């Protein structure tokens, strides 16, 4: 029976179908590949996330490395300074007199518990010193147990200052043990504090 070419072709192709075995084989290939192949958009997202993670982690690692180096360097410098026990430039246990002595600093030294004698410690006096080449104040204290301790206060350029741990109440600063003395470094109100004392 004559029919249009189109109808004849549609009829011919309607008989062309994959059998069950062929379909299973192809669907298995498809499913097996889904596990290892991602949509291109997902691929691009994964690449972007990897780059961001690398940058963040790289930056974090670099900052950690820089902070570690800076704190180590400050701790060593302050321990050497403390051990030299250079003569005090102002001798007094009156915190007001000692603080008034510092007229050449670029910051105001803070009245903190370490130098106000609230813990039974005795302020002996103070002198100018430097932290990383920047003029700073050194306070010398005799602890209740008779040992000598130093508390340094100074400021640093912002980039370095930001690497110093900022303490919340109850937290401890960065602690270092160098040449038999304990060093603790922290910052508060934009001022760097370094406490150097013999071990308990």
């Amino acid at each position: 029976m004559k029919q249009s070419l189109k109808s004849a072709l549609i009829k011919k192709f309607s008989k062309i179908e994959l059998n069950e075995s062929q379909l299973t084989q192809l669907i298995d290939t498809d499913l097996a590949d889904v596990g290892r192949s991602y949509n291109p958009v997902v691929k691009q997202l994964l690449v972007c996330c990897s780059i961001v993670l690398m940058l963040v982690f790289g930056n974090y690692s670099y900052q950690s490395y820089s902070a570690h180096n800076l704190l180590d360097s400050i701790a060593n410098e302050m321990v050497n300074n403390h051990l030299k026990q250079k003569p005090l430039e102002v001798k007094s246990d009156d915190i007001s007199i000692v603080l008034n002595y510092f007229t050449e600093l670029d910051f105001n030294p803070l009245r903190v518990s370490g130098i106000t004698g609230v813990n039974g410690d005795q302020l002996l006096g103070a002198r100018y010193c430097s932290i990383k080449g920047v003029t700073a104040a050194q306070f010398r204290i005799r602890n209740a147990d008779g040992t000598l301790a130093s508390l340094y206060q100074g400021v640093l350029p912002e980039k370095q200052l930001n690497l110093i741990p900022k303490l919340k109440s109850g937290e401890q600063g960065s602690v270092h043990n160098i040449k038999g003395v304990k060093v603790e470094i922290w910052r508060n109100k934009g001022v760097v504090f370094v406490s150097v004392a013999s071990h308990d």
Partner: protein
Amino acid sequence: MFTKENLNKLYRYCYALCDDRTDAFDLLQASVEKCLKQPPKDIKALQGYAFRTIRNTFIDSVRSKKTRESEEFDETVHVALDHDIRSLESVLITQTELEVAWSKLFKIEREILFLWAVEGYSTSEVANLLDKPKNSILSIVHRMRARLINNRDTQLVDKKKL
């Protein structure tokens, strides 16, 4: 990614190219693997993408075999014709005549017939998929139509002789 319906549709296209069920399945399998390894950016364009992949895979295999038909497949005739692919709609044929004629068609002719009749492609869409000028497609359609009619009439004469 592919549904049963998708796969059957692609298989029919493979069959139009290969004119052999086994070869068609091999071509489909190779093309599906290629599509899965490098899926389209827009999943909605999957069918067009799969058709192109099938066609490229087929051309590669034909080229590697270096058969005479591969030259025919690449044939392009730049003749502007007034014919449209719809001119094929006026051809009347029996199922048996089609089967006989089908085996005598070139690959590109089978492909055009499949895309036009089964997939409902226009001349422009066929030209776009086959990456050929529209005039080349029309030229092929024109000659194919003449051959189909001639072949049908020859079969009719042969039948009468018998």
